[in-house]
């Protein structure tokens, strides 16, 4: 009896110690990184190969080291490495006047010859860049004098400046780093013109960026930025609480390193602040209007599905408010997208009425509707690796089931989903728009591309007109005409309900409370670290 009591006491003591660990108290004071000029951020992926003309590198890191000719901002295109430019009346020739006195991190001068070499290096690997239409339109690039570059296109293409503004591939690397006169075989260094230069890099552990003291825009106040490779979740949260890292932000896949409760916990300690951006992209269900033999071909069915989605609940309950409900393909802050479109709120009655009018046999208390013998059943594909899509799909399946639509859910890998999209082998699938840097022109250009949304849009009644308008808008040089055309294009796909929006994604930053100047760019992939400083 005595022994049993002692053993019991020991067990209880152990259990108490262990359970104490479940109730995590406030953090210890942040340690290493409160040196006024350093930021250490946690990232799940290593920065990888920082070749600006390929796609393996970390985009935010590339955004710090390299720059483009122009920058896309809320107020339109602004100068960056090019101070000014002229566009010929036929829209086929762009003449850039470069900024003087700019040098690459290794000292090489930034001039027209360097621009020409970089653009030609990108073009020599054209098939890799086929996704960016500009690469298929560039006919030649010439250096007219030391600071003037002329870009000749094969036909007018209004998004030229927008695509030149993207983080890659049209960013500039010192020609001394080229291999064999180009960059597709690799590069020997990562010297750009940006506010930060890569100082140290140990693969899969960390990368250190130091301020470029001779940056043309003025030396950044934040002198040192370290990217530490840490797996998302507990490890990142504990490192934040200890102060070993002091910054996290949403990555280029839209994933956060710590969940919303953890963010709130950190903010509550008073040592961190959370900053959220405007909507950056739209998560949606894409409906294949050209899928023969499927109910998804009918506009009424797609519209009914739209009405059967409870976006408020998805946003608040499933996603903890980290994404806001979306009612159109593009949010209002996207260029050309601030137009009036029919609002389709969550309403099961309207959905039922639409289906009744379309001849789908009325449901007897949640049973599947039928029409001419075939059931109203469709397959919905989602990304099995996404943390939220499965839950959203199941929720939509249950609400749609209440109006007699049967959805079969299938989770697959993202590359498998991409393959389905490019072959047209799907009825419904989860997808998202390209994002603020690329919308609306890249997503809309995708309406005609087989690898993107051709099958989605092919089956609608106004398809031919839609494609004609898309072709017109890319060559149009008249701003007003473009606005009218975009309004028409967006209205057509909105009325046909081929892109059923669910929520808008944002970029969330968790930063030290004393950090000022936190802002976002007109792209979800980069952050303007050069504007941030500790007070």
């Amino acid at each position, binding site marked *: 009896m005595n*022994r049993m009591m*002692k*053993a019991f006491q*020991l*067990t209880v003591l*152990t259990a108490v110690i*262990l359970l104490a*660990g479940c109730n*995590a*108290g406030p*953090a*210890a004071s942040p*340690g290493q990184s409160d040196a006024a000029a350093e930021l250490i951020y946690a990232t799940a992926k290593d920065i*990888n*190969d920082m070749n600006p003309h*390929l*796609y*393996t590198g970390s985009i935010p890191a590339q955004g710090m080291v390299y720059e483009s000719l122009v920058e896309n901002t809320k107020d339109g295109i602004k100068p960056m490495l090019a101070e000014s430019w002229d566009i010929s009346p036929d829209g086929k020739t762009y003449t850039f006047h470069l900024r003087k006195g700019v040098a690459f991190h290794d000292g090489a001068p930034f001039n027209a010859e360097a621009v020409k070499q970089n653009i030609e290096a990108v073009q020599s690997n054209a*098939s*890799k860049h*086929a*996704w*960016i239409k500009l690469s298929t339109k560039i006919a030649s690039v010439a250096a007219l004098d030391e600071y003037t570059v002329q870009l000749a296109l094969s036909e007018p293409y209004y998004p030229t400046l927008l695509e030149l503004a993207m983080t890659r591939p049209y960013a500039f690397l010192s020609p001394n780093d080229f291999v064999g006169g180009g960059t597709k075989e*690799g590069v020997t260094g990562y010297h750009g013109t940006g506010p930060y230069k890569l100082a140290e890099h140990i*693969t*899969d*552990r960390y990368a250190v960026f130091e301020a470029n003291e001779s940056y043309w825009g003025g030396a950044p106040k934040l002198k040192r930025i370290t990217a*530490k*490779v*840490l*797996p998302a979740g*507990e*490890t990142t949260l*504990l*490192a934040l*609480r*200890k102060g*070993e890292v002091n910054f996290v932000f949403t990555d280029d896949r839209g994933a956060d390193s710590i969940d919303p409760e953890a963010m709130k916990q950190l903010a509550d300690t008073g040592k961190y602040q959370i900053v959220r951006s405007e909507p950056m992209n739209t998560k949606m269900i894409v409906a294949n209007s050209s899928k023969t033999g499927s109910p998804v071909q009918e506009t009424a069915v797609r519209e009914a599905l739209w009405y059967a989605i409870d976006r408020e609940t998805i946003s608040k309950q499933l996603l903890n408010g980290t994404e806001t409900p979306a009612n159109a393909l593009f949010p209002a802050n996207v260029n050309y997208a601030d137009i009036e479109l029919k609002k389709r709120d969550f309403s099961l009655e309207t959905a039922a009425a639409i289906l009744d009018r379309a001849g789908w046999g009325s449901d007897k208390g949640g049973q599947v509707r039928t029409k001419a013998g075939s059931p109203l059943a469709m397959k919905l594909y989602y990304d099995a*690796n996404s943390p939220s899509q499965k839950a959203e799909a199941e929720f939509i399946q249950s609400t749609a089931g209440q109006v007699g639509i049967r959805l079969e859910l299938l989770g697959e*890998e*993202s*590359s*498998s989903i*991409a*393959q389905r999209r*490019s072959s047209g082998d799907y009825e419904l699938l989860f997808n998202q728009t*390209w994002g603020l840097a690329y919308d609306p022109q890249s997503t809309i250009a*995708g309406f005609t*591309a*087989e*690898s*993107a949304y051709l099958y989605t849009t092919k089956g609608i009644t106004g398809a031919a007109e839609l494609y004609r308008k898309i072709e017109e808008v890319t060559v149009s040089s008249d701003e007003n005409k473009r606005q009218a055309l975009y309004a028409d294009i967006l209205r057509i796909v909105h009325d046909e309900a081929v892109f059923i929006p669910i929520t808008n994604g944002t970029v969330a930053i968790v930063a030290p409370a004393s950090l000022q100047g936190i802002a976002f760019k007109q792209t979800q992939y980069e952050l303007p670290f050069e504007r941030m400083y500790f007070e």
Partner: protein
Amino acid sequence: MAMGRYMLRRLLLSLPLLAAISFIAFMLNSLSPVDPAEVVLHAQGVPNATNELIAETKAALGMDQPLWQRYWNWIVSCSKLDFGSSYVTGKPVWSLLGPAFLHSLKLTLVSVAAIVALSIILGVLCAIREGRMLDQATRGIAFVLTSMPSYWLGAFMIWLFAVKLDLLPTSGMDSWRSYVLPVAVITISFAGIYFRMIRSAMLSQLHEDYALYGRACGLSESRIALHLLRNSLQAAIPVFGMAIPTLLGSTVVVENIFAWPGLGALSVKSIVSRDFPVIQAYVLVLAAAFVLFNTAADIANAALNPKLRKSV
């Protein structure tokens, strides 16, 4: 002489085993329903893979060759320690696998040393004090600690020692201090199993005739215990030997929690990004390590116990 023949036989047997494993590792990757060229482009981050680009990638990587040809090419290059190039970075696989293997090995060796030391100490103590408070308490605590999931244990220990008490770093592989927590988590998870083995080996030795004879001769308990330990260890050495490859393969969770840049972290990363060459090489290297240590353990066993030398 029989020993030499036994060693030769075991070594030769391991070759077809390795061949079979390499084949399975290669085949498993080909079972993916997605076009491998698309997988490569996806891994490289290319935003949109057009059909021309896919065809180009296929030709460049030799994916249009028949399966047998590709397998043979891979095996031949593997024998030269050239495991191909990563889909994601384009760098040689060995440049990724080599350092990761070394880092994991460092962690594993330190952990094995700690496990052996702890197991022996606890095993001996518990065997000597069999049935008493120490024995029961140790077994109970070890049972609880071993059953705990290592990710929870790891997170708890980081919180306690790194955040709350601020004694150690939370993650990474920076100094000797970084070894403490990962080794502690691994040791706690495994020592609970191994110490019981030592304990039962000691207990069975305790009841042998020579122990009784030693006591009758008036030898001190500690000298008897030393003899018992030597005999128990003979049974334990092969098991500890197998612990090394077992731990090498089990460090996935610990490495991911502690951001340790080893094989575990590399394997998770390459699986998530579908980096097939790395995955294939990882499976092959780990399987080879298992086969090697298994063979060595068998040989060690046969060296200690002559009766085993006749069998294969």
